[in-house]
């Protein structure tokens, strides 16, 4: 069975589920909160230092970063948990894996699905910011450059988180486990980020996605590009050997 076919069924499985509320609703909710924040406090925010350098769109981004850096790893945690919960909750694993599909294609398809959903969430966040900024009537034209870089760093940084949460969610039948670990790590991100070494830990890297000067964007880039593929392969190797009991 070819990977695209397996992937197509993975997308199909998310039909009319709660997934879309999370992927679309989550980012829009955050964008909504930021909208209220910037709208109410715009004059104050303008007085903060660096505001001239950042520009109005940059100010909005600066407001969003910390909130989103915590929510995005949580969101990925939940996306991965839901993808796997679909298989665990009504014993679908044994049926799925006895069909003529390779374990590898199933594992990679689910990984790709989580990536796709995460990227959709990032896209909706950007869209939300764009609309929020337009409604507030930010004076400058939309800052494509910095928002594009912000989205790109997130997209790369997310890969490591996805590989970890994907494997954890596949490992535990009890959905509480991967969710507790993922949310725990998301909350700890801000502490992890204090340490030079631990700031490369996938869940912490979203804190370094601000496209501003002085922010070490190498965190999400290196972490995502290394941890993403490496942990995907390690998880896959384990998944292929696993007994489905």
């Amino acid at each position, binding site marked *: *069975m070819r990977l695209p*076919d*397996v992937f*197509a*069924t993975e997308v*199909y*499985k998310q*039909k*009319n*589920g709660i997934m879309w509320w999370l992927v679309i609703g989550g980012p829009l909710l955050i964008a909504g909160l930021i909208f209220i924040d910037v709208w109410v406090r715009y004059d104050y925010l303008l007085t903060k230092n660096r505001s001239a350098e950042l520009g109005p769109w940059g100010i909005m981004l600066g407001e969003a970063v910390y909130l989103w850096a915590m929510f995005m790893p949580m969101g990925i945690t939940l996306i991965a948990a839901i993808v796997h919960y*679909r298989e665990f*909750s*009504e*014993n*679908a*694993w*044994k*049926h*799925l*894996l*006895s*069909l*003529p*599909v*390779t374990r590898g294609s199933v594992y990679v398809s689910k990984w790709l699905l989580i990536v796709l959903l995460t990227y959709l969430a990032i896209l909706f966040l950007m869209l939300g910011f764009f609309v929020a900024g337009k409604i507030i009537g930010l004076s400058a034209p939309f800052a494509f450059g910095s928002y594009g870089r912000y989205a790109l760093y997130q997209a790369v940084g997310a890969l490591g988180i996805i590989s970890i949460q994907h494997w954890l969610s596949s490992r535990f039948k009890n959905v509480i486990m991967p969710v507790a670990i993922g949310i725990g790590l998301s909350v700890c991100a801000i502490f992890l980020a204090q340490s030079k070494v631990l700031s490369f830990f996938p869940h912490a890297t979203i804190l370094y996605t601000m496209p501003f000067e002085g922010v070490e964007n190498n965190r999400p880039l290196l972490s995502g590009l290394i941890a993403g593929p490496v942990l995907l392969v390690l998880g896959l190797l384990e998944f292929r*050997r696993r*007994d*489905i*009991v």
Partner: protein
Amino acid sequence: MAAFVIETNNLTKTFKGFKPVDALSLQVKKGEVYGFLGPNGAGKTTTIRMLLGLIRPTKGEVRIFGKPLERYRLEIARKIGSMVETPSYYGHLTGYENLEITRKLLDAERKDIDRVLEIVRLTEWRNTKVKTYSLGMKQRLGIAQALIGKPELLILDEPTNGLDPAGIHEIRDLIVTLPEQMNMTVLVSSHILQEVERIADRVGIINHGKLLFQGELAELQSRSQAKIYVEADRPDEAARLLFNTGYRIEKREGALYIDADKSRAAEINKSLILNGYDVSHISEERKSLEDIFLEMTKEAQSV
């Protein structure tokens, strides 16, 4: 074409010190309904999961359609339909959508979904979410999933588990008609002998991971010939009399067990009475397959 559709050689699985399946050598012939019997926890499900490639054997080999499963799993899986224990489904999708996923992965034709829905009589419920189905309907959906793509081999693990009597009957009928209609080989497991008794051509009986018997039910039945049970006064003398008229007799606890079926009961009774023995009880004794099955699995337990 290989002689056996399923063949296992010394199949063994060890989980942290305990062996749910121990040196199992099964042979399932083409076109038969094979009943895989054993009490709960005997190792049936573990064996079946190994046949489907869900669990790796610790030792031994599985060959299906004459090919080693380990190397040809994809090719083999294309021709197998299965339902293992509890039905597998996605509750938030409809019956049709569930079948569509299986169909796509099997690369079967779309109209096959209608065919299998018809077979398990779920056509009416095709657009209803599966989480609202009754257990029997879910079980039937499981069978529909197994039938998609017209498999050559059907593996059903406890397909009637948790069903009401009507549901059990229905599934049993289905299993009987499938090999005839579609030229399938069926392996069906159960912990209840009666369930398999009427449908299986051959059975394998397993307990504690070991195969205790494999063969036709008639062969198993022949292990228990009908006997006539007689209570009479002076049993020793009565036994001698009957022995002299050509019966094989066994004496246990003062009663006689005669190797004969009930058509001879009247004759035996007459000859005893005419020769002056009072007969206080005469009846036919036949061990049911169930008794044999229970005895067999119990013996193994006490070892």
